[in-house]
C-alpha cells in the first residue's frame, strides 16, 4: 500500500540519500502516520490535483490574502505559495515542542525582566554585559519600567527545525512582532475547502482558537484598576505587508484595528477617536516596531506611532504587547545563551535543543569561523526575515572571501552555525506538475499572560520552494503547508 510507484501523485517523487524525509522511510514506504494520507491523495490523478490546487489558489486570491508585487507598470497582487499536502506531527512529538516553547518563552520573559531591572544574570557572569550594551535593541528607556503584570513577551514565535538526526532544534526566537499566525488559519481553511474528505481520517487539533486565546491573554495583562479592558490592535496601515494578518487578528478577536492617527494621549491615558468621541484604550497589541511607537521617545519623524504613548506605558496606564525592548532577547547572539538562561531562571534543562553557535565577537571562535565558512551558516545577529544569511556550502570562492571580509569588519554583527540538514517534505511543484522534496521548518506561536500560557496546536510549516534551499522565510520566496497536530 505504501509503495510510491503505484501512487499516481508520487510516482515521480525522488528520494535523496542523506535527507530526513518526514513522509517516506528509508525503504521508500510511507511512514505509518502518513499512510492513510498517502492513500487518500493517491486516489487523485495529477490533473485532479492541479484542479484542486488552482481552486485553493483562487480561494486565497478571492479572500484577498495577498501581498503586493511592484512590477514595471502596475502593482500586482500575489498569493503566498501554499502547498496542499499537509504536515503531520504526532501528539508525543508535539508535547516536546509545546512544553519546550513554553519553557523558552517563560525563561525569556524572566530574562527580560532581569536585564531591565537588577541584571542579576550579568552580575552572576552567566551572560556577558557587552552582549547587551552592544545590542541596538536594548532600550535604555525600558530600564526600571514595570510592564503590567510583569509580562514582556506576550507573543513569541519560535522557529524550530527537525534535523537529520531526528531531533528538533530551535533556530531562533522571535519576540518582537512575530507574524504568520493568520496563514496557519488560512492554510487550514484552504485545505478544508479543497480536500475536506481527508479530515475524516485524522483527528487534528483546531487552529482557529488562536484569536480567542490571544484576547484572553491580552485581557489578562490589563492595567491596574481596569475591570473590562478595551483591547486594540495597532497596525502601520493597509500598505504594510502583514496588513491582512493585522486585520484578521482584530476581526477574529472582535476588537478595533487602529492606526497611530486614531489614538491620542491625554494626561498619560490613551484614547481612540471614535464616532461617539474619545474612548479609553487599555491594552494595545502593537504590530509596529519599537522605534516607531512614539515619536516623542524614539524616532521623532515617525508618523506611525502615537505621541506620548510611551509615557502612558511607563505610568502603567496602558499595556503594550509585546513590551518595547523585547528585541534584545531575540538577538541571535543572545540565542546562544538560551540553555544557560533557561537553567539560570527556571532551574530546568532545556527541552528543545539549541544549535551550536559560534560568536564572531570571540577571537578564538572568530578564527574558527573564518577558516570554516564553507561548512557554516553565517547570520547577522540583528536581522529578521532571513535577510543577510550566507550558507557556506553554496558560496563560490570569491563569495567566501567577501563574507570573510564582512565578518572581519564587524565581528559583533555575526554568528555562525553548522549547516543543519532540515527535514524535507513532499511538496507540489507547479512548474513540474509533480511532488519533490523540499526543506521545511516550523514556527510555533506561544502566548504568555498573567498565570496563563498557550501554544497554538499547529503552527506554520514553512517550505523553501527552491530546490535544495534552506531559507524558508516568505520574504525569500518560501511557501507554507497546513500543519496537523494529532490528538492523543
Amino acid at each position, binding site marked *: 500500500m505504501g509503495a510510491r510507484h503505484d501512487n499516481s501523485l508520487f510516482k515521480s517523487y525522488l528520494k535523496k540519500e542523506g535527507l530526513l524525509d518526514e513522509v517516506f522511510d528509508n525503504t521508500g514506504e510511507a511512514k505509518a502516520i502518513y499512510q492513510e494520507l498517502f492513500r487518500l491523495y493517491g486516489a487523485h490523478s495529477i490533473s485532479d490535483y492541479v484542479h484542486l490546487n488552482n481552486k485553493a489558489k483562487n480561494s486565497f*486570491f*478571492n*479572500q*484577498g490574502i495577498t501581498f503586493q508585487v511592484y512590477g514595471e507598470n502596475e502593482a500586482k497582487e500575489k498569493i503566498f505559495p501554499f502547498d496542499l499536502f499537509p504536515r503531520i506531527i504526532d501528539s508525543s512529538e508535539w508535547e516536546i515542542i509545546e512544553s519546550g516553547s513554553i519553557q523558552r518563552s517563560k525563561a525569556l520573559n524572566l530574562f527580560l525582566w532581569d536585564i531591565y531591572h537588577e541584571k542579576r544574570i550579568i552580575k552572576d557572569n552567566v551572560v556577558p554585559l557587552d552582549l547587551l550594551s552592544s545590542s541596538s535593541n536594548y532600550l535604555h528607556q525600558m530600564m526600571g519600567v514595570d510592564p503590567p503584570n510583569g509580562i514582556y513577551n506576550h507573543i513569541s514565535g519560535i522557529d524550530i527545525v527537525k534535523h537529520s538526526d531526528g531531533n528538533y532544534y530551535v533556530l531562533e526566537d522571535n519576540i518582537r512582532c512575530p507574524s504568520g499566525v493568520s496563514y496557519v488559519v488560512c492554510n487550514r481553511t484552504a485545505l478544508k475547502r479543497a480536500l475536506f474528505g481527508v479530515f475524516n481520517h485524522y483527528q487534528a487539533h483546531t487552529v482557529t482558537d488562536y484569536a480567542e486565546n490571544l484576547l484572553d491573554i491580552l485581557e489578562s495583562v490589563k492595567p491596574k484598576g481596569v475591570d473590562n479592558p478595551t483591547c486594540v*490592535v495597532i497596525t502601520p*496601515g*493597509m500598505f504594510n505587508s502583514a*496588513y*491582512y494578518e*493585522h*486585520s*484578521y487578528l*482584530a*476581526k477574529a478577536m472582535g*476588537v*478595533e*484595528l*487602529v*492606526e497611530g*492617527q*486614531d489614538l491620542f494621549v491625554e494626561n498619560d491615558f490613551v484614547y*481612540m*477617536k*471614535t*464616532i461617539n468621541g474619545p474612548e479609553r484604550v487599555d491594552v494595545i497589541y502593537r504590530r509596529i516596531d519599537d522605534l516607531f511607537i512614539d515619536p516623542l521617545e524614539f524616532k521623532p519623524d515617525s508618523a506611525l506611532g502615537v505621541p506620548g504613548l510611551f509615557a502612558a506605558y511607563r505610568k502603567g496606564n496602558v499595556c503594550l504587547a509585546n513590551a518595547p525592548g523585547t528585541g534584545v532577547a531575540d538577538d541571535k547572539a543572545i540565542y546562544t545563551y538560551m540553555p544557560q538562561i533557561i537553567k539560570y531562571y527556571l532551574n530546568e534543562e532545556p527541552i528543545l535543543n539549541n544549535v551550536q553557535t559560534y560568536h564572531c565577537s570571540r577571537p578564538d571562535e572568530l578564527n574558527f569561523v573564518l577558516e570554516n565558512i564553507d561548512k557554516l551558516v553565517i547570520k547577522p545577529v540583528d536581522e529578521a526575515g532571513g535577510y543577510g544569511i550566507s550558507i557556506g556550502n553554496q558560496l563560490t570562492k570569491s563569495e567566501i572571501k567577501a563574507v570573510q571580509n564582512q565578518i572581519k569588519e564587524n565581528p559583533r554583527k555575526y554568528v555562525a552555525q553548522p549547516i543543519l540538514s532540515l527535514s524535507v517534505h513532499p511538496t507540489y511543484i507547479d512548474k513540474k506538475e509533480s511532488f519533490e522534496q523540499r526543506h521545511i521548518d516550523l514556527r510555533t506561536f506561544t502566548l504568555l499572560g498573567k498565570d496563563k500560557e498557550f501554544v497554538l496546536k499547529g503552527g506554520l510549516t514553512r517550505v523553501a520552494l527552491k530546490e535544495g534551499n534552506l531559507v524558508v522565510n516568505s520574504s525569500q520566496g518560501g511557501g507554507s503547508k497546513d500543519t496537523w497536530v494529532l490528538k492523543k
Partner: protein
Amino acid sequence: MLSRVANNLFWMGRYIERSEHIARYLNVNYFSSLDAPNEKSQSRQFVLKSMLFMLGEPSEDHTVLNEEKVLFNIGLNTDSYFSIINNVKAARENANSARDLISTEIYEAINKFYHFILNYDKEVFVKKGLYDFTVNVIEQCMILRGKIRATLLHDQVYAIIMMGINIERATQIIRIINAKYHDATVAKGSYGDTVANSFEWITLLKCAEAYDMMRRFYKKTPTSISTLEFLVLNGDCPRSVMNSLNQICDHINVLDRSKHPAKDSTAFLVGKLRAEFQFKKVEEIEEDIQRFIEQILQKLFGISQKMEEEFFKF
C-alpha cells in the same frame, strides 16, 4: 467605531451604490435607444451625450463623440475620475481599511468584484461586452448589498454603510432624473405623438429599475408628472428619493440617539428634509424642476458634509 473607519465605510457604501447606477444608466440608455421611436433618440450621439451628461460631463451640441472612447472612459478607464473601475477600486480600498469590521463575506465579494472588472478585456468591453459587463456590475452590487444586510450586525457600522448607500442612491436618482429631463428637452419637438413622448419617461423609470413597479402602481402609461411623483415622492418605491430619505432617517437614529437632535446636527438636517418631502406635492416640483434638482442635491451634499464634521473628523 473609529472615526477614520466610519469615514471609509460611509464611502465604501457610496461607491458601491454609485457603480450600480452608472452601470444601469449605460445599459438602459444604450439598449433602449436601439429601437427608439425616432431618429433623434435613436442616434448614438444622443445616447453617448446623455451618458456623459449624467456623469456631470456635458458635451457641446456640435461635438462628435467616439463611441468606443466614451464607453471606455465610463467603464474601464482608470484615468477618468468617474469610471466604474475607479468607483469599484475606491470601494475596495475603503473596505480594505475597515477589513476588521466588515464580514469576510463582504470583503470576499468586493474583492471578487474588483478583480472581475480589473480583468475585463478592454477591447471586448467597448466592442461587444457592454451588456455583459454592466449586467455583471449591477449584479455584483446587489450581491454586495445583500451581504451587507445579511452578514453584519445591524449596529452603528451597518448604519454608517447604509447612510452612505442611501445618500448616494437619492443623489444618483436625482442625477438620472436630471439627465433624462435634459434628454427630453433636447428631443422635444421630434416626437410626433404622446406614445413617443412617454419613451423618455419609460427609459428614466428603467434607469431606476422602477418601470414594472410603476406600471403596477398607476396602471397607466407614464407621463412626466406621474414618473416624477413615483421616483421622488412614493415612499413604497425602493428607488425613490422618499424611500432613501426614510432609510437615512432610520439609520441616523442609530448613530444619534438623542430624542431632540441638536440644531444643525446631521439628525436635525435629515429629519427636516424628510418632513419637507413628506408634505411635498409633485406639482410644486414640476413648477420649476431645475430649481428642485439643484436644491435637493445641495441638501444631500449638506447632510454628507455634516456627517463628516460630526462623525468623521479626526
